């Protein structure tokens, strides 16, 4: 077993052990962080590995969240089917918006994705009769279970989040070391060259975006079922920016970066908001420090200083 794989398995093992060690408050936090990490991993596949700077990933997270939430509450889907619908919704919405947005690049791509996400957010508000708009709706407790496993209880919730996180992490790990992953990285590094090696840039980037959307959709779907609330704020601009911040902090283009970034950023906000209402200023300060001293994020900096084996 390579040390890279060993490290990733160790992180999963440590998270498994953490549920017995940390107090209940952090227990819930960690479950939340793991789900948000999956979202950030998806973002990282598009941004960190393929070089697609999207400002609209809340659309894919929201698609997963609402497909699952509305699927249960409005269409009477079983929980398992609704979760699957959430996963697919993320991928389908990513494919549809990608087909259009990938006709652009660079700054235009950022703006187009931002606008798509804004349109998605407004759509949720427009259909307030079903979505209850900003106020959102609660998924009935009875529906937050598969068979005898009740996800509103602490331990099943934690384990479900961990299971999703583990699968996402290992798939991500395998992806970036595969031929497909290499062709995505090639788009980020030198698109011109890739074209002249026979790659169709549009197709490679669309695939990356769809995988990214599946991650975001899965995270959104799980978030709804595990925490029981579906609201429009999850499809707002803030949820497009958050995964970007997580990834920048942990290290773009590293498999563990999104988790590390989500963990640190979550607690940075959590702890600083205990002292001040201006906790976003603390986040801003942290990002400034990061950009100045470790522009490639924490794991990116570590990789640059010798740990080149980090995937």
């Amino acid at each position, binding site marked *: 077993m390579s040390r890279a794989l060993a490290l990733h398995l160790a992180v999963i093992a440590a998270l498994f052990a953490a549920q017995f060690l940390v107090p209940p408050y952090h227990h819930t936090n960690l479950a939340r962080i793991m789900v948000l990490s999956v979202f950030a991993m998806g973002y990282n596949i598009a941004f960190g590995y393929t070089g697609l700077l999207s400002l609209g990933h809340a659309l894919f997270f929201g698609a997963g969240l609402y497909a699952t939430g509305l699927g249960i509450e409005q269409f009477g889907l079983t929980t398992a089917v609704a979760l699957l619908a959430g996963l697919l919704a993320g991928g389908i919405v990513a494919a549809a918006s990608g087909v259009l947005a990938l006709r652009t690049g660079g700054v235009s791509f950022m703006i187009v994705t931002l606008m798509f996400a804004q349109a998605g957010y407004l759509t949720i508000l427009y259909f307030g009769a079903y979505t209850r708009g900003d106020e959102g709706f609660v998924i009935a407790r009875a529906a937050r279970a598969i068979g005898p496993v009740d996800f509103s209880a602490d331990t099943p919730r934690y384990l479900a989040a961990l299971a999703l996180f583990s699968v996402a992490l290992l798939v991500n790990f395998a992806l970036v070391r595969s*031929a497909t992953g*290499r*062709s995505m*990285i*090639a788009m980020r*590094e*030198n698109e*011109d*060259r*890739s*074209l*002249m*090696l*026979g*790659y*169709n*840039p549009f197709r490679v980037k669309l695939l990356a975006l769809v995988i990214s959307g599946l991650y975001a959709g899965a995270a959104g779907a799980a978030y709804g079922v595990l925490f029981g609330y579906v609201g429009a704020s999850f499809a707002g601009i803030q949820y497009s920016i958050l995964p970007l911040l997580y990834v920048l902090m942990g290290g773009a283009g590293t498999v563990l970066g999104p988790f590390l970034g989500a963990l640190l950023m979550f607690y940075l906000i959590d702890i600083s908001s205990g002292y001040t209402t201006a906790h976003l200023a603390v986040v801003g300060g942290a990002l400034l420090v990061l950009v100045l001293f470790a522009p490639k994020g924490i794991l990116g900096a570590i990789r640059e200083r010798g740990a080149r084996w980090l995937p």
Partner: protein
Amino acid sequence: MAALTLLSARALTRHFGGLKAVSNVDFDLQAGKVHALIGPNGAGKTTFVSLLCGRVPVQSGSIVFDGRDITHLAANVRVDLGIAYTFQITSIYAGLSTFDNVALAVQRQHRDTLQTEVMAALTRVGLQDRADQMAGTLAYGHQRLLEIAMGLALSPKLLILDEPTQGLANAEIAHFKTLIRGVTPATTVLLIEHNMDVVMDLADQITVLNFGQILATGTPAQIRANAAVQTAYLGG
């Protein structure tokens, strides 16, 4: 007996505004040979080969490659048909290892024997000991060789090299010449080159381009004896 034609262009034209980069060019490439393209700076050599490989869209005219009209095919599709292009300004993946650079060329054809194929391609240009090195940290000459290795790793029918020996030391140029002799006749080579020793040594055919038009085509001996070429290019 006429040799087999791998590629032929007819009335190929590309203007950039008022600049007639390539104007009404007819061009035939014989299979299995080394064909050199020479001409003064700004003669349209790079634009011409960019039209052939699809980096620059054709304005008018047509290109037939291996019996198929490729005039309007995308560049990546032409790569699949067997046209490889190496850039004039070294274009590699600086942030990836030398191995990964070549793997990107190899993996679309040989996914199962990737390791072997990549190492074979690197060995061919003498970079086998640098497989793990970051490509951006290679010496300039080695980066040029890596670029050629990537082109060869595509196992193309036609390899287009845009000033491959630019900036290489003499020993490296000698190595390059051996390398190119070794790839023909399996691969046809179209070479843009400023170094006349390399051209005269390697080329079976030479085409001279000037102001976007063909001035002369012939064997090295014919080109050397051509008065028009001497005036325009070889300096009288």
